């Protein structure tokens, strides 16, 4: 963990307390999780109590308090995807990776999350792997997508 990097992120937001969520988002995108030292540093620099940081970090879905896998698999479970079989997509992802939503495997290869809507409703069911959308995905195509992840 590079404290200077955290300081830089805080600087980018002028060290403003109201930018707490924005700062945490930047840290999350840098490290793919919120390391404890980073949170402590943010609390110290912004003069924000740890209880508030902890609440925010656990309140918003974008944050993770544990390290994430190298590949982030998001299965959209928005209504449009739900009525078009998102549950079967999720079941298949679970079968292949061996982990359920919110979990990361022991090798830190995959993290699986459900998301409430990616806004590609016309293409449902949708799965997103490392930021790339796979629309109209059939359960039978999932293995080949995930097998391409190293």
């Amino acid at each position, binding site marked *: 963990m590079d404290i200077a990097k955290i300081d830089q992120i805080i600087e980018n937001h002028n060290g403003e*307390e*109201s*930018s*707490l*969520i*924005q700062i*945490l*988002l930047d840290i999350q995108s840098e490290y793919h999780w919120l390391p404890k030292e980073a949170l402590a540093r943010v609390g110290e620099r912004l003069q924000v109590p740890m209880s*508030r940081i902890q*609440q*925010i970090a656990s*309140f*918003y*879905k*974008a*944050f993770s308090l544990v390290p994430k896998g190298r590949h982030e698999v998001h299965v959209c*479970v*928005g*209504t*449009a*995807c*739900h*009525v*078009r079989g998102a549950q*079967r997509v999720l*079941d298949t992802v679970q*079968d292949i990776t061996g982990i359920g939503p919110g979990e990361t495997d022991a090798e830190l290869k995959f993290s699986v999350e459900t*998301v*409430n*809507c*990616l*806004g*590609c*409703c*016309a*293409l*449902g069911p*949708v799965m997103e792997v490392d*930021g790339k*959308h*796979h*629309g109209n995905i059939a*359960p039978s195509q999932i293995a080949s997508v995930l097998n391409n992840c190293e």
Partner: protein
Amino acid sequence: MTMLSSPEKLECARKDIVSRIDPTKPCISVCAGAGCLASGAAEVIAAFKTELEFHGLTTEVNTKGTGCPGFCERGPIVMIYPEEICYLRVKPEDVAEIVSHTIKEKKLVDRLLYVDPATGEKATRESDIPFYKNQQRNILSENLRIDSKSIDDYLAIGGYSALSKALFQMSPEEVMGEVKKSNLRGRGGGGFPAWRKWEESRNAPDPIKYVIVNADEGDPGAFMDRALIEGNPHSILEGLIIGAYAVGAHEGFIYVRQEYPLAVININLAIRQAGERGLLGKNILGSGFDFTVKVHMGAGAFVCGESSALMTALEGRAGEPRPKYIHTAVKGVWDHPSVLNNVETWANVTQIISKGADWFTQFGTKGSTGTKIFSLVGKITNTGLVEVPMGVTLRDIIEKVGGGIPGGKQFKAVQTGGPSGGCIPEAQLDLPVDFDELTKAGSMMGSGGMIVMDEDTCMVDIARYFLDFLKDESCGKCTPCREGIRQMLKVLTNITTGKGKEGDVELLEELAESTGAALCALGKSAPNPVLSTIRYFREEYEAHIRQKKCPALSCKELIAFHIDPDKCKACGTCFRQCPAEAIDGGKKRIHVIDQEKCTKCGTCFDVCPPRFGAVRKISGEPVPAPIPEEQRAMA
């Protein structure tokens, strides 16, 4: 970069941009909205660039990534100007042919045109496609005309002229008056008249005021705001600055969810471009009016779409709603008067000022003026974004624009209003789309999600789905919402898994009543999906509870798969593909499903060749005993 320090300079710059556009020069516009990008639009754009270079046509032909035109189902969508040829589902492999045929020889690539499923007729231009023809695309049509990353394109189509008009030809009161006359109601959910919030804020004595764009589009199944902010970010910004001028605010926020990365990029870019041109910041267009705006990314919380929760989040806190006994228009962000409107509302403000309230009110009904954008999704032939005048019937949207239900299935219900809305049945389809009419029917306009459901959708499961969604999305602060949702979800889960009891429906109704005591609108409206499905589909609840039957054959615990021995041709398809190895088959042996091993994944049902149709779903009746071994051999 020239600063546009007066309205005259703005008009000069516009003339200059327009004069450089040759209307006869071919232009290839590819939708670069999120939907088409997910279908491979980026690869198509890249292929066009390579192909044009190969033919030495880079200077003669423009290529452009535009905003979403709405027909996501058929993406990636390519438009060729000036002929306005519309190609659908274009793949990188098609690009060479488009360039050599259409661009060079002015011939059509027939197979990429829209084909009317009913008549088999082909449509060349976008405006000939029924999906578009039956819409009134006041706002969405601009998406197609501009490169969403180019302020010049926006200026070319008249961008920021509404702002110039407001700042130089109208007083703030006149701007307010025009919006009031238009009777613009908030497009984000409740349909609260926009001018009322504005006026309340303006009249509040506090000199520090804020205007805010709510782009935290959280309703699952809705993506109108995404398309607007990605496709035409300047129109939102322009509306916001106009609103700020009317209200007397000098600072604004755009709260956009981080799940929409392209929207975040495009709006930030638009803010930078507008600042560089003097359309944001100090002394806008030389008018003496100052306004700055900041983008705040939402970190993933549905509840933040609620205005007071959004404002709490803007302050850098967990997005818990606050009691609104004093309106946020008077006491909002950091207790200062704050006007919050959603993306589509702000986009409408720009048009109202530009074209006038009288122009605006010619669309829609008396109580609900203007047009509304819906995201028409689910079990519908043409999925995508649809803009229609308020007052058209749900039936027209679903049948004329949406093209009906695919696969010869029966329509069952349409869900509007997201998790706070409800399901509307066939009998109510002639209802006009209007804020008040939808509320009367037990649903609501919401932000515009319209999810179509067919006979295969279980309405009890839909109610369960929304409660499951809300269980995690409630902030958890107040008891009726947190605990009411928890208990309602338990009852619904029991019903959909065959553990329902007599009295469950009444219990749901009682729990629903208690959520009326919740702190915010999200909690108060949480039982709507339950109440509306009970109201219109009570018999489905009763079938689940009494006969342990799911009439839609959808609830896993209540269904079984069975191979009809008279129809099975022992082709082996299901046998090979069953992931649970639950099918006993073999050459010329009628296949049988081992009910103990079956995980009800439905693979056998999907893969059984339609000409056999041997796999059946059963619910509410015993599974027929497997055919005796000696009878399984086929002749």
